[in-house]
């Protein structure tokens, strides 16, 4: 795995780099601004870019725009966007951006939960999705408001499973988190898809996309 880190705070950049190296992830380049990211993407063709949303020069959402632009240059690039805020507007932009690589959007402090963070890094690198639970909570809340949706037909347990699915977790990871068997998770998943009227799709990633498409349908 070849990774580029874009973060303007040296303290955080070094922390993430050290963490990744401890887990045998190759950090091919570090950058501090959008220009740097695009240069690295053109030059090194990395697999994964870990990008801070707020970057120079204006310290607003350059990182997000740069990540989307980098995927246009190099569509297989997987992007993991880190931020101190999650914004529903940004989630929608990221998920609808072009490119074929995986997508992640997480709060920065989640990096401290090393196992979950490395799990997310690997998932996004493998073309999957990793969304912060706050992002998912907002998506679910947004969907919940619209009437005639199936969410209220789900049991509390099924809602939990739905949330974890939307974060991008695999069945195995969901089973571990909820301390249940893999078989139990599969049963919940089948029920959820049935109650929401979603076509049962094969493969974790396509399943996530189906759930996200459903959640985002509220607008």
């Amino acid at each position, binding site marked *: 795995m070849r990774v580029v880190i874009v973060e303007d705070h040296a303290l955080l950049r070094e922390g993430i780099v050290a963490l990744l190296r401890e887990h045998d992830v190759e950090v091919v380049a570090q950058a501090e601004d959008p220009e740097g990211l695009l240069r690295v993407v053109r030059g090194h063709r990395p697999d994964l870019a870990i990008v801070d949303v*707020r970057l120079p020069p204006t310290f607003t959402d350059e990182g997000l725009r740069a990540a989307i632009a980098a995927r246009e240059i190099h569509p297989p690039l997987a992007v993991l966007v880190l931020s101190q805020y999650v914004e529903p507007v940004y989630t929608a932009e990221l998920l609808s951006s072009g490119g074929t690589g995986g997508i992640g959007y997480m709060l920065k402090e989640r990096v401290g939960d090393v196992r979950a963070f490395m799990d997310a890094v690997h998932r996004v690198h493998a073309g999957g999705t990793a969304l912060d639970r706050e992002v998912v909570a907002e998506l679910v809340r947004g969907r919940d408001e619209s009437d005639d949706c199936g969410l209220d037909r789900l049991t509390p347990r099924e809602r939990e499973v739905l949330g974890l699915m939307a974060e991008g977790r695999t069945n195995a990871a969901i089973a571990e988190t909820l301390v249940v068997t893999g078989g139990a998770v599969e049963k919940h998943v089948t029920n959820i898809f049935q109650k929401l009227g979603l076509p049962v799709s094969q493969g974790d990633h396509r399943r996530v996309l189906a759930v996200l498409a459903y959640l985002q349908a509220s607008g």
Partner: protein
Amino acid sequence: MSADTVDVLRHDDEREPDPAFGLQVAFSATVGAAVTVVWVAAGGEDFWPRWVWFGLAVLLVLHLLVRWAVLTPPWPGKALRIGTTVLVVLSIIDVAIWMLTGANDAFWPLWPMIGYGVIAASATAVVHRHRLPGARSQQLIERVDELTRTRSGALDVQAQQLRQIERNLHDGAQVRLVALTMQLGRAEARLEDAGDEATLALVRRARVEASAAIGELRDLARGIAPPVLADRGLAAAAESLGKRAAVPVVVETRLGERPAPVVEAAAYFVVSEALANASKHAASSEVRVSLEQDRRRLVVVVADDGPGGADPLGSGLTGLRRRVEALDGRFAVASEPGVGTSIRAELPCVS
């Protein structure tokens, strides 16, 4: 003093040339010249055109006087000018009578004119004793202008400072706390490998605490200066608030050029507070947020179909009212029981 009064007062300063008066001068000059030519052609006896000239001049003077009196600030400056106008007209009538009766006697209109002069002088003196209202209005206008300017300057500075505080939090304390959680996380991983369960539990708890502190700082920063507002503007920020709300929200925006940050922030907090209220009190099936901007103002309306009966004097709504009125805006709450609550804020947004 309301904005309307200032507008009226300002009329006095903006004395544009009066085209009607120019026309009248031209007309009078032409007629005067014409009758003089006729008089010369008729043989030049008894200079009768002076009556025509006199009549035309009187009309011109009347025109000027009326204009001068009408375009005055209200009482008592206006009274003084109208009084003076009446006295001048009386003097003209006296002089006209004197001329019509032959103009041969002693100039008797002098005596009434002296009387008029005394009346005008004493009236002027009285008004001046009341500190010359015309000048006082002028002072008030200047003072209002100055206060408006400095207040909006102060609010702009405040908005910038809040944004700066948010930046400082983001780049200072929050970064350090995030770095701390990363280091604690790495320590956790090592303790896990070493199998030191007791220390691991302590470190994990420390990391969870640090994460909670980051969460609290994030909420604090969002309450001070929401980043999405600065990044993407009002429409995106309202959309974001709508998505975060616990009730269904429909957002409609018709916005032009971005207004001043302080106006944007006020509009944002109106929407935010109104949505929070709607979520808290109302079992609304839907809340409608509308943001419309034209050249002069930004109108924010948040309406729900909940049970109504909100207290316009409650602390939240009073805070919003103050915020809006500090920007010379208008704020209204309609909350009939059974009809729903509608909050409307109108913010001037001319730079």
